[in-house]
């Protein structure tokens, strides 16, 4: 990367089932305004806006970017919309960062959102296709067989997913923005929740949320204009691969491994578990924590579940590399924003500003997102230390 860039402002909405008090425009503006206030800036200080969201079918509003221009203060300014399915929040932040790192813009506002209450994502993901029986049962129906194959290969105990689901909901109790605040969450409660897509239980799946997340990314020369500690962007990477090809490794996708190797190299990470203080990783179904622990190199193949069971990823258990201290996607899932929330929460951690879910002394953190049939990956590493 040619130029240095940092996150200087972070804004989120409270995530919840329905935001009936605001339109989509009101929702994105709220997050953007929060990010500008956090950065001590105003609309005029922004050079361009990079917007992300998941498929238009999720709200039924086609090309929402066309009507969100004014709500995001970018009349007469460059405005681009990014789309990479569920990973879009992450890749949108990376597009925004890349514009600053390339020197094209000095200060970019990036926003992503989903207002799931306005339509039905399960329906949007379950459309009949002419060459296939109409049996695609949402994201859970797609990922459940892949999880089953992971369980077979690894020989992991049946309750690893239950542990992840419980751990992330406990983390969420520390985060006022989290959608789910399940005060009496326990492994028994998760285990007794109804099976949806065997082996995925109701409480092992993410909720449907309304919400938006926003960041201001500034060039090194303008970082001093904002009052908060900057989160320096140390590396960014995006990878993709086709959904289906013969011999495709679906449990431990090549694109994820390549993306991680790239971002680690940029940030000088040789041992992610040791070198990263915490991570915000896209885990929409509980078993994806052990699967991504392996894909991201925190554990050898087949052994990610051991870290989960040992409490390594738990803030409450004092683990050495807590994952999803915010509560993660399992606790808040405005789909288009979910990736950006991971990136923003990583930034909050390294600027020591995550409140009750702060990892003490965190200096370096990973933000991660994936989407489609686990075929789009976006990752960044942010640090309190200027490179």
């Amino acid at each position: 990367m040619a130029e240095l860039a940092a996150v200087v402002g972070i804004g989120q909405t409270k995530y919840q089932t329905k935001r009936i008090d605001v339109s989509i425009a009101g929702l994105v503006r709220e997050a953007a305004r929060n990010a500008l206030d956090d950065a001590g800036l105003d609309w005029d200080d922004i050079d361009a806006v990079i917007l992300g969201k998941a498929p238009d079918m999720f709200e039924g509003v086609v090309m929402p970017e066309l009507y969100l221009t004014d709500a995001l203060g970018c009349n007469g300014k460059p405005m681009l919309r990014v789309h990479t399915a569920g990973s879009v929040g992450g890749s949108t932040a990376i597009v925004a960062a890349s514009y600053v790192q390339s020197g094209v813009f000095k200060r970019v506002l990036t926003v992503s959102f989903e207002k799931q209450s306005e339509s039905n994502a399960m329906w949007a993901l379950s459309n009949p296709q002419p060459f296939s029986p109409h049996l695609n049962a949402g994201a859970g129906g797609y990922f459940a067989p892949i999880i089953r194959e992971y369980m077979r290969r690894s020989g992991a105990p049946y309750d690893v997913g239950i542990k992840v689901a419980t751990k992330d909901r406990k983390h969420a109790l520390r985060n006022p923005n989290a959608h789910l605040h399940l005060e009496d969450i326990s492994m028994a409660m998760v285990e007794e929740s109804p099976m949806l897509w065997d082996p995925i239980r109701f409480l092992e799946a993410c909720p449907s949320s309304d919400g938006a997340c926003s960041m201001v990314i500034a060039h090194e020369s303008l970082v001093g204009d904002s009052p908060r500690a900057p989160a320096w962007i140390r590396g960014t990477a995006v990878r993709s691969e086709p959904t289906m090809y013969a011999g495709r490794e679906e449990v431990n996708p090549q694109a994820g491994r390549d993306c991680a190797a790239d971002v680690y190299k940029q940030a000088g990470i040789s041992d992610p578990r040791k070198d990263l203080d915490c991570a915000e990783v896209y885990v929409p179904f509980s078993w994806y924590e052990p699967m991504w622990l392996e894909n991201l190199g925190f554990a050898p193949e087949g052994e990610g579940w051991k870290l989960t069971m040992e409490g390594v990823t738990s803030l409450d258990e004092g683990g050495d590399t807590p994952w999803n201290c915010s509560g993660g996607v399992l606790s808040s899932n405005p789909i288009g924003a979910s990736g950006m929330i991971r990136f923003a929460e990583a930034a909050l951690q390294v600027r020591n500003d995550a409140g009750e879910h702060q990892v003490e002394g965190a200096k370096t953190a990973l933000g991660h997102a994936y989407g489609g049939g686990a075929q789009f990956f976006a990752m960044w590493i942010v640090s309190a230390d200027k490179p």
Partner: protein
Amino acid sequence: MSEDKTGITMMDAPIYLDYNFTAGSATSRFLHGLKQGVLIGQRCPGCDAVYVPARGSCARCGVATGEDVVLSDKATVESFTIVYIPIPGNPIKPPYIIANVVPDGANISFIHLISECNNEDVRIGQRVQAVWKPESEWTYAMDNIIYFKPIDEADIDPEQIGR
């Protein structure tokens, strides 16, 4: 007449979408095969993998597939899920089993229903066979196969499925 000024927070505004699907040559042959009660795949000239439904290219090698391969309607369960919720727009009643099945002779799976069995008996590596609708009802669709049912053959080693 009094005027109600409470906030309007949600209005139903349905979108209807009809679209035309251009199948292309490879998928056309696959769909014509289904009309005859046959699964037709295509072999990749680069890696020899057989794709079904044939979509015209091998996504791994980035080359066109050309050679048609007639496949058995026997298959192996690669993985599966038991679904306890309905599919929007599909009258199927839960719980039902959706499996990724690899037809004999192919190197990739597609999804279909498994039936005529106890749900708890379905397993990775299990052998299954297509149950077809009556010939008079065959059309250009995968729905010509109603579901796959278990058959009395030895399980396949999971590491060998689709190899």
